[in-house]
């Protein structure tokens, strides 16, 4: 009895060509072992395949063929290296271009950065000053306490004001980049303004008249605080006298109260 019916031509070929899985291969081998006709058929195909391999001619290639193959090899080799080299060159070019552009733009970027920072600092300072002023406006606070608090906030010593002054306004304002306390008051001699500003270094300057034909003013410094007394309709000598009295008052060294 033959098992040949179980195998198709394509399965026999798949066995010959190594396309069967190991399990089916064993089954086919078992069938071949039991079927003489099938075994001869398989052996014939194997024999013919081997003969085909042996019958292959060994060609002698012409110089033209060899030359074309070598040209192809060179071309493919160039393709292998050239893209890498070109990519490297492109990357280097981009790097140099970026470097060059960076160098060119440094001054502009630095200038912009400086301007931006200065602007931001100015805004921040203005907001802080405004916040301090806001407290003055929204909270009832005695004048002397306002003076001490704002003076402490900007690190200036504010002298005790003459008793005859009627203080109309106390505020903070940036003057020449310095946070200053400005007091607007009405004295017996007329309207006056006292400005107390932080100075760069400690020193002592006596009351000195500021030569201004339209607005009489006196400047003096005690420690790290500079004072300017301005009275538009006040005589210069009167201003100097007031300044001298304030100098004595500031020398007493008022210590701001600590609130809260």
């Amino acid at each position: 009895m033959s098992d040949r019916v179980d195998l198709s031509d394509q399965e026999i070929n798949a066995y010959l060509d190594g396309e069967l899985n190991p399990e089916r291969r064993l089954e086919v081998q078992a069938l071949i072992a039991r079927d003489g006709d099938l075994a001869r058929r398989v052996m014939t195909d194997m024999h013919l395949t081997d003969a085909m391999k042996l019958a292959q001619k060994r060609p002698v290639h012409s110089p033209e063929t060899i030359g074309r193959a070598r040209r192809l090899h060179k071309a493919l080799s160039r393709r292998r290296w050239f893209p890498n080299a070109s990519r490297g060159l492109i990357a280097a070019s981009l790097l140099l271009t970026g470097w060059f552009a960076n160098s060119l733009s440094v001054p502009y970027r630095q200038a912009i950065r400086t301007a931006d920072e200065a602007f931001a600092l100015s805004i921040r300072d203005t907001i802080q000053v405004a916040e301090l002023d806001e407290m003055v406006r929204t909270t009832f606070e005695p004048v002397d306490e306002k003076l001490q608090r704002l003076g402490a906030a900007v690190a200036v010593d504010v002298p005790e004001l003459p008793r005859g002054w009627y203080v109309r306004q106390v505020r903070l304002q940036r003057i020449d980049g310095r946070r200053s306390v400005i007091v607007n008051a009405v004295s017996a001699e007329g309207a006056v303004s006292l400005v107390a500003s932080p100075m760069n270094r400690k020193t002592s300057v006596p009351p000195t008249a500021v030569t201004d034909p339209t607005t009489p003013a006196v400047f003096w410094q005690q420690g790290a605080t500079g004072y300017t007394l301005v009275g538009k309709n006040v005589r210069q000598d009167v201003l100097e006298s007031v300044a001298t009295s304030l100098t004595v008052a500031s020398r007493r060294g008022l210590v701001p109260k600590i609130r809260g």
Partner: protein
Amino acid sequence: MDIDPVPHLDELWRYARVLTRDDADADDLLQEALARALAMQHAYDRARPLAAWLMRIVRNTHLTGLGRRNTEQKGAVALVAAIDPACPPCQVEHVELRQVAEAVDALPREHAEILHLVGVLGYSYQDAADLLDVPVGTAMSRLSRARATLRALVRRAPGDERTPGLRVVIGGRNE
């Protein structure tokens, strides 16, 4: 990945020889294919084997070039056999290499081609089907017919045109 075609020249020539059935035509086909490969070098995917790419170029060059017309003319007058399904199991115990070579030359080109790819070069069915641009099932069927035809051709004694079970095919079509 190996990109030197020189070590593959023998393999390419033998495939060209199967396609053209003539040594000189195989030389011409191989040279033409190499020139085409040079022109198409940018299409080569370096992740894939060079030999397989070149084999495809050899085949396409043959199918689209002068070699195809020459081969068709030769094929029109060639005696080609196809196996009768009723043919009993062949009893080929020993054959001369020359007989086999002649039988392969007498096979239809597509039969010789699939036998060469799978039997001689050891291509998997899938690789052979890819190269031939046919489904795997078609490649397997073609291989079955090719082996049956080869068995029949080899079994037939030289000069014997009356072997039972053989039909004469001219130009690849049954007459």
